[in-house]
């Protein structure tokens, strides 16, 4: 799926931060953590106030006119040529891989393609553009990681999360069986096919629990909401958070407490 070779930019002085609607409403801590990590790397973070949603929910549901109207409202948010970083493989994938197709044969074709080329998944950006060095200040712990399918297959960043966690000396990263299998979120799929999605997430949680880790981290809030929500409802001994929240907590000097 990752067809095009990625050419990483030189580390810029400024980036646009595209927070995504799930982070905005449900996981703003993860967004703040991402912003603070970037700032600590000496990058000025510009947060366009008029951002809403990338349009993906309507796009994958087939409502492309509606998706295009929403996506079009995002196209004007990034006038300078700075990179656009996104704390999500899924929304990043939408903007990087699908905007060109969505705007094909429209007046915004060129603009959508230009913006698509500047989209970076945030952990990828931290590792391969910022060359971040993390200093772990937290207590010893064991975590598992779930890389979202879009982070893995659309954005091609499956190796990045483990690299970041590997820099944390007190963090023991364990891998669940079938780590590359979908957690069953899939946006509206979880609502359209609740039984299938439920079967998928229940197996995902079982494999996470089997690792012995009490917490897991993930690149995407959709997966987080799905896996964590299932574990909570079914009283499974594992909780999750966004990898950015985890990284920030472990390295910001306040002893690893949740922000």
């Amino acid at each position, binding site marked *: *799926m990752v067809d095009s070779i990625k050419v990483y930019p030189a580390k810029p002085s400024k980036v646009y931060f595209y*927070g995504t*609607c799930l982070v*905005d*409403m*449900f996981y*703003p801590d993860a*967004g*703040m953590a991402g*912003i603070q990590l970037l700032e600590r790397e000496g990058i000025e973070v510009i947060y366009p*106030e*008029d*951002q*809403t*949603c990338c*349009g993906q*929910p*309507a*796009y*994958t*549901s*087939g*409502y*492309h*006119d*509606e*998706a*295009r*109207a*929403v996506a079009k*409202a995002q196209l004007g948010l990034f006038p300078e040529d700075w990179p656009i970083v996104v704390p999500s493989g899924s929304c990043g994938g939408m903007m990087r891989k699908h905007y060109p197709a969505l705007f*094909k044969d429209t007046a915004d074709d060129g603009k959508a393609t230009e913006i698509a080329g500047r989209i970076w998944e945030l952990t990828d950006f931290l590792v391969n553009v910022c060359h971040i060095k993390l200093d772990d200040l937290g207590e010893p712990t064991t975590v598992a990681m779930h890389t979202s*399918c*879009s982070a*893995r*297959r659309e954005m091609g960043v499956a190796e990045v999360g483990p690299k970041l966690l590997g820099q944390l000396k007190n963090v023991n990263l364990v891998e669940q069986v079938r780590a590359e*299998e*979908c957690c*069953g979120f*899939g*946006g509206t*799929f*979880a*609502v*359209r*096919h*609740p*039984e*299938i*999605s*439920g*079967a*998928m*997430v229940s197996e995902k949680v079982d494999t996470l629990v089997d690792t012995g880790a009490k917490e897991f981290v993930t690149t995407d809030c959709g997966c987080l*909401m*799905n896996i964590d*929500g*299932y574990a909570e*409802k*079914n009283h499974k001994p594992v909780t999750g958070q966004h990898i950015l929240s985890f990284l920030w907590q472990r390295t910001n000097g306040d002893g690893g407490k949740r922000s």
Partner: protein
Amino acid sequence: MSDTADHSAHHIDVKEFHPRARAAIHNPQIRQNFRKAMDGLMSKRKSAFEGWELETLRDLGANIRLRALANLPDLLEQLEQKLTENGMTVHWAADGDEACEIVRDICVARNAKSVIKGKSMVSEEMELNHYLDAQGIEALESDLGEYIVQLADETPSHIIMPAIHKNTEEISQLLHAKTGTDLSHDVEYLTANARLQLREKFMNADVGVSGVNFAVAETGTLCLVENEGNGRMTTTVPPCHIAVTGIEKVVPNLEDVTALLALLTRSATGQHITTYFNMISGPRKADELDGPEEVHVVLVDNGRSTIYQDDELLDTLRCIRCGACMNHCPVYTRVGGHTYGTTYPGPIGAILMPHMVGLDEGRHLPTASSLCGACGEVCPVKIPIPDLLVRLRQESVDGDTVHPAKVRGHGAKRGAVEAMIWKGWSWMHARPGIYRMGTSMGARFRKLQPGKFGGWTQYRTAPKLAAKTLHQRMKERSQ
């Protein structure tokens, strides 16, 4: 098991995907059979490609198929000419019914009463067995999996392993009930018995019907990939061989087969090569001791030329029928092949079948995916399956006025309520001020958030709105 009736060939309503999915999800035997089988197939594929430059090979496979499709009309003409020169008779069928009639006419002309069949998914598309049966011609499947499925009066649940939904215990009981074989878990024993039964049928069959994996235009050669030897028997023992194939199976040169074969067997079953690879280049010649007197090739369209007319949908026709997409599909693994209610199940079925049955009938098929992309990742010819699923979702709701839908039965899934919801969603998210107002109101009154969201909270807790949105926090920060 009560679901046998649901699987039998002629009672399937494609639209009834949801109830079948629910039944499969709650059937531990089905769940276990598929999980175990798919885990095995995934791991075999992985080892089979070890040491190979898989991405390079997939690029090559994709390009071979793209080149073949780019010249499809010319290649088909060349193929017809070469097959004819090689002494084979070429027939063209617009759809499954026409293909069935062609097979019947050949049988009638030879006064044939019994047909032995090698594995062929195109013949499943045609529902050839039932058609011949109604004409008083017995058609017997000789591929072991197909034989089992036929004995059970079911349809294949996988395109490579038709009886993958059954475990040894179930197969043992079926063979015992239908053929009198002793109950046994010894696979060797069960296979040997089936073989004995089939051997006699081979000897007495009037006609052999097979599929085709690759049809080579430059040489007029039909390539057939198989493991059991039944394909070779089917195509050489009976006095007449009829090969049925989709028109997209043609490749320009013999050299193209090398890469595609390497990809096919590894992707399908994790084999470096199958036990048998047949290259059929014509009927028995005057100085030859065996082989059929007549060879017929039925080139079946059945919707393919319509798919061919769209630059994006065309990619569907690259498929070499390896089944890797279903082996790696987390949805297929949970619900099994019969849930789809289609000849081709899983991801490839979801992008192919809407063209064959109409997008009105097949409206649920493209939704049966989390768009995880595993199918596209393993496809040996790099079909962008997730993109095609999204395209068909769009077509099923007539969701794009810039790129209007064109697949037969498009728009059938569009519902007034759902369309209104998306319009409202779009209206709000295209207006940043309204969005900010809505989301900050949500944050403020989050305690009033309903605790139930349909199917979501059936399995999970409801997502919890944060006390302040990121927008609000960034606004405060900048002040």
